């Protein structure tokens, strides 16, 4: 086999434009919406749960701290595919009996949410704990209680600092949403990866995977650049010129903050 033949074979395996063209309408109609629903729903739920975990993690109540610690250690320590299978298959029958629904879709969202909550909780906790203690003290000195002081002053600053890490977590979530295929979703519930996988197995050609890859990259690369943009913005702040203090101007030397 010479080089030209190898390239030709690879081209046929991965870049069969006809196979790619055939799978794209289904990607747009079914795969993309499902990936977005899975990622956004579990991203939102995971963020809310993550904030609860973070606040428990820094609470003065040792029981709350312990629960947050154990939850985080377990969910972060398991392979995502195992968590999805255990939650999807384990709770499936219970949900089926309670609601009559046979769709594993809600369980897929639940599994992804619970997993990302563990990561997001740690992100929030580190952000909140990095806020200077003087901020809480100054807010309380004005007469705010602990709760309002955290909500109005400390938490917003902590969250702002970890926005890049948070967006990275959303990128991870988009990718991990592909693992829900292990639950055997209905045809209308399949996301980008499984649409590609189905098409690949019926056609015997790997090009649909390439189509799936393009869809994932179209979602994740802009987010990656968004992270970099926020990161830069947070580092340098809005460009604004510092002015010397007028008290200092009398002395004749510009003030440094």
């Amino acid at each position, binding site marked *: 086999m010479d080089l030209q033949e190898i390239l030709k074979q690879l081209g046929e395996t991965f870049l069969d434009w006809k196979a790619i063209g055939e799978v794209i309408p289904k990607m747009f109609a079914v795969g993309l919406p499902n990936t977005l629903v899975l990622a956004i729903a579990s991203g939102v739920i995971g963020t809310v749960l993550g904030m609860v975990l973070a606040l428990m993690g820094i609470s003065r109540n040792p029981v709350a701290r312990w629960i947050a610690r154990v939850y985080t250690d377990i969910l972060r320590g398991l392979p995502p595919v195992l968590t999805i299978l255990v939650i999807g298959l384990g709770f499936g029958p219970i949900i089926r009996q309670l609601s009559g629904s046979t769709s594993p879709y809600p369980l897929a969202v639940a599994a992804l949410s619970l997993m990302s909550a563990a990561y997001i909780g740690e992100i929030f906790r580190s952000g909140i704990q990095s806020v*200077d203690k003087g*901020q809480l003290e*100054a807010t*309380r*000195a004005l*007469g705010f209680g602990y709760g309002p002081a955290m909500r*109005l002053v400390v938490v917003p600053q902590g969250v702002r600092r970890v926005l890049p890490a948070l967006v990275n977590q959303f990128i991870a979530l988009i990718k991990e949403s592909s693992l829900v295929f292990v639950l055997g979703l209905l045809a209308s519930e399949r996301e980008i990866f499984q649409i590609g996988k189905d098409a690949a197995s019926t056609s015997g050609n790997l090009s649909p995977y390439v189509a799936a890859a393009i869809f994932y990259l179209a979602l994740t690369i802009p987010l990656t650049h968004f992270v970099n943009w926020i990161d830069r913005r947070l580092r340098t702040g809005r460009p604004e010129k510092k002015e010397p203090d007028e*008290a*200092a101007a009398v002395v004749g030397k510009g003030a440094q903050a």
Partner: protein
Amino acid sequence: MSEFVSGTLTAKNIHLSFGSNRVLRGIDLHVEKGTTASVIGPSGSGKSTLLRVMNRLIEPEQGDILLDGRSVLKDNPDELRRRIGMVFQQFNLFPHKTVAENVSLALRKLRGMSKEQAREDALAQLDLVGLKHKADARPANLSGGQQQRVAIARALAMKPEVMFFDEATSALDPELVKGVLALMTDLAKGGMTMVVVTHEMGFSRNVSDTVTFMDGGVVVETGSPEQLFTEPRTERLKGFLSDVL
């Protein structure tokens, strides 16, 4: 500077320990309405801790705190702190809010003012400290002296009966100290009740009505500035003064 509705503040026999470290061992401090008490002493003598106990950021283990003759230890501590303004060494302005928002936050959330009313009050307060033109800047774009004046405006906006200053000029570049001290002097002359923990011996001597020298968690000497600065009675105060003057 306008008149203030000031109160008399008394701390009686305050005790506090952090673990085995006895930080405050029976402190008495009395600040008559409309007067300024400065608290001096070496680092680690418990001065800053005393301020935090008197507004109950830290609860004392023993002793009593009276505002206008009435014990405040049974009150809601959040409500007590609304009556006592505090200014910190590191300013502690809220970096994610504008200067005006720093001043108006407590007015809106604790005094229940409308956004417009709170902003108007905040601007008036900023005008008093000479920083109205910085209302929409972020604290990070202000010099240290300007930040501390905003912090003073933020505390004053709540119309406190007493003001605490915790080494308010210690973190400032030397050329910025004067502006902040001038503002504190104006407040003192305007009749605000103030407790000033400071290393500025000039301020302590010339502006305050009483001076209290603390060392090792106890009050070693207290009296008028003349008494303490010209005729210190204890070796410890003599030693301290010869170190700092």
